[in-house]
């Protein structure tokens, strides 16, 4: 299996949700998708395709809030970034933590530092500050000084 085959299989399943595909090299792929499909995509990657969830990165940019979900296919040394762009005013997306525990902490962290809401998260409490920071202050947003 090579990166082309992985992209091909992915396209076959989620054609209508894919917005953009960038193949940086044989081992790095970035696929931008519609945020609504994240549960189905994660389910396919984790349960059927044998990917491991590494971590997710939230970014506050001009487009709004972006999240890169980093998945690793260890037998092939490949990193697949599932990229979603969320709404500027009300960023929210389905939580993956009911599927695997690996995303539990990082979703809590992104909720706390960026103010992104993860719907149906089992326990979306603060991870880092334990309530010692003011509500509604998100230190990783660009406007925070």
């Amino acid at each position, binding site marked *: 299996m090579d990166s082309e085959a992985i992209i091909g299989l992915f396209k076959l399943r989620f054609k209508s949700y894919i917005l953009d595909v960038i193949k940086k090299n044989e081992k790095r792929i970035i696929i931008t998708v519609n945020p609504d499909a994240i549960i189905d995509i994660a389910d396919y990657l984790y349960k059927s395709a044998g990917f491991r969830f590494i971590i997710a990165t939230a970014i506050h940019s001009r487009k709004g809030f972006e999240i890169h979900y980093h998945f690793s296919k260890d037998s092939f*040394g490949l990193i697949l970034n599932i990229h979603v762009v969320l709404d500027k005013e009300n960023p929210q997306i389905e939580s993956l933590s009911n599927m695997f525990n690996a995303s*539990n902490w990082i979703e809590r962290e992104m909720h706390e530092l960026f103010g992104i809401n993860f719907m149906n998260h089992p326990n979306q409490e603060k991870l880092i*500050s334990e309530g010692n920071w003011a509500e509604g202050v998100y230190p990783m947003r660009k406007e925070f000084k």
Partner: protein
Amino acid sequence: MSKKTLIPIGPYHPLQEEPELFKLYCDGEIVKDIKWETGYNHRGIEKLSESKTYEQVFFLVERICGICSTSHPFAFANAVEEIADIEITDRTKYIRTIIAELERIHSHLLWVGLAGHFLGYNTVFMWAWKYREPVLDLFEMISGNRNSYAMFKVGGVRRDIEEAKIPLIRKILSDARKKIDLLTGAVMDDPVIHARTKGVGILTKQDIIDYGAVGPTARASGLAIDVRKDDPYAAYPLINWKVITAHEGDVFAKAQVRLLEMYESISMIEQCLDGLKKEKEGDISVKVKEIPEGIGNGRAEAPRGEVFHFVQSDGSNSPVRHKIRAPSYVNIATFRKSCIGQTIADATISLAAVDPCYCCTERMAVVYDMNSGEKIMNANELINESVRMTNELKKTIKLQK
């Protein structure tokens, strides 16, 4: 409902070198539930990194962790070099690999020592840390520092390893191999260590996949994931070595993986030293003009597992977003699986088994009775509890009268 006692481990505790609070809810001696509070040491490094230039970020990420202070610059260098499409020289590859593997040896020795200490084997602690000392001397000789080596930069390394230094490096490594033989023999053949660590803190393969755990923690449960093999970088594809795995998933398996990995590391360094001979001296970096717009996913295998760095560049001289995932972030979460159902005496070693990566500050832990608020145990008493169990076992196995 039966009475549950809350046992907080931390925020400052000898078990952990960095502040973090674990709350063990116990019924008698058995741990029934575990909760944690993190963030006592949150330094905002990801945000800070956005205000530094690429050259400066290396010094910043090196200070994330005092013990694996090469893993973070390594992963960051991999990420930035991926954005700018930089091909480093072979000599650079060998030097980077030597530093990373030396670090693995000193970090694993440190862990073996600490694990011995928690079990009440202070001799193992003294030995392991004594044998670790020559490795730190090697670092001082190569980089000028015993820690925070400042060896990495974009496209190369800062210091060369000269021909004249190689014989001494080889000698220290061959001495280290003999010492590790001694240590491995002492740990692997001791019936009491077997009794204290076998079947304790078991993580199944499914637990590892669920929590996304990495490094020796994953490899001890039979999951052969290792970034050095899976996604080869630096000199790892140029040399011969094998991934060490075990299948039991308990504390003993984790110790076994770490001890055997040290032999692999020594062999890797020796091969890299051979490789250095073939390369032209002084050829340790390539010229980097600018970092273009783009994103890079860099990773490196730290002693504790995969370090992941995500860097987004907008073409300026500092990153727009820099995400860092240290291996302990995913490994610590497995405590929920490894500790619940164990006794308190075993909890200490189960927590220590994933080698939670912290840096030293103050130490304190006190056990309170949840109902009366009365103080029951302090840090030393908690460790003594673990030592007591070892001593009882020694008596049972008739090693000690």
